[in-house]
């Protein structure tokens, strides 16, 4: 069981309340403690909230989806990242995540 900081985003066309339901459900099913999600800003190319997470004191992050931020940014955080929608965790599921990112990029 981990303490995970929630991360949702206004950059995806899914209401924040729905994103939060997905995040909360993921944490409940996997017995993680959820710290209230912060919302990423809407401006293209800006990931200020995720940058703030670099210095966060918690076991990891739980994001609504792996597509709420660029792959390179997720990998650079140096933290465990849970993707609630896809049910994958970095770095443990790196290979599966890379496959998904490649499939969606083509």
């Amino acid at each position, binding site marked *: 069981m981990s303490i995970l900081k929630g991360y949702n985003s*206004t950059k995806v066309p899914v*209401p*924040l*309340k729905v994103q939060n339901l997905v995040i909360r459900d993921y944490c409940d099913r996997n017995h993680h403690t959820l710290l209230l999600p912060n*919302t*990423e*800003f*809407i*401006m293209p190319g*800006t990931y*200020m*909230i995720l*940058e*703030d997470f*670099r*210095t966060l004191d918690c076991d990891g992050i739980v994001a609504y989806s792996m597509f709420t931020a660029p792959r390179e940014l997720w990998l650079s955080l140096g933290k465990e990242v849970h993707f609630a929608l896809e049910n994958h965790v970095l770095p443990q599921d790196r290979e599966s995540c890379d496959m998904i990112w490649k499939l969606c990029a083509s």
Partner: protein
Amino acid sequence: MNSFISPEETELTERFLRDGYIIAPAEDEEALQYLHELVAPTDEGLTPQNLNECRLQVIAKLNDSDKSRLAYFCLAQNLLFTLIGSGLAMQKKFNLSIQLPHDGTSLLPVHADSWAGDSPYQLVLWASFCDCTRTKSMFILPPSEPFTVEGSSEDVYQRIKDRVKFLDVKYGEVVVFNPTLPHGNRVNEEEGTRWTINCRFKNLWSPYEKKGPGTDFEPITLRAASKIGMSYEHPKRI
């Protein structure tokens, strides 16, 4: 362009556009007292560890009360009518901020509400249940000051910290501010705990962006012309 706004409202409007906020006495003493009793601000027994639980309990009391939103609106009804218009929508839930002295665990880093998908047409009504000054208050960057959003929120704040304004607000006063301006709070280095609530108001018919009617807002002053327009249908041919 001709403006039919009165000189008093014009002055208020220009001041708001220039500064990004207005501090004014609460318009309804009874409403303020009602909210004060609901919130019941106290330092007793409050620690960084139990702070969030306390916050959630008070928010639940505020949001469960069927009179609290009306009372809150009454704190600044005329000001909101002047700055936004008289057909209003109000955020469905209150936000409550409790900041213990020297506690960095419940900070709100610099941000603008519109960056998170809020409508740029909304204003925030901020009410304090104590005197707020310097780091016991919120800060806002005046409209005339430029800024950039590179890096983390702390990077953004460090670039603007010499130009932000911490608002001096006495208990009994309210603030209406423009949330498209960078604002937030810092660690409270003053005496006493800050207890403030905030809620957003917008023109009913202005764009909602990501926070729509139903999910986040509901109408509070629906005027006759709007009621007529919403239910109007052209006559049908027989």
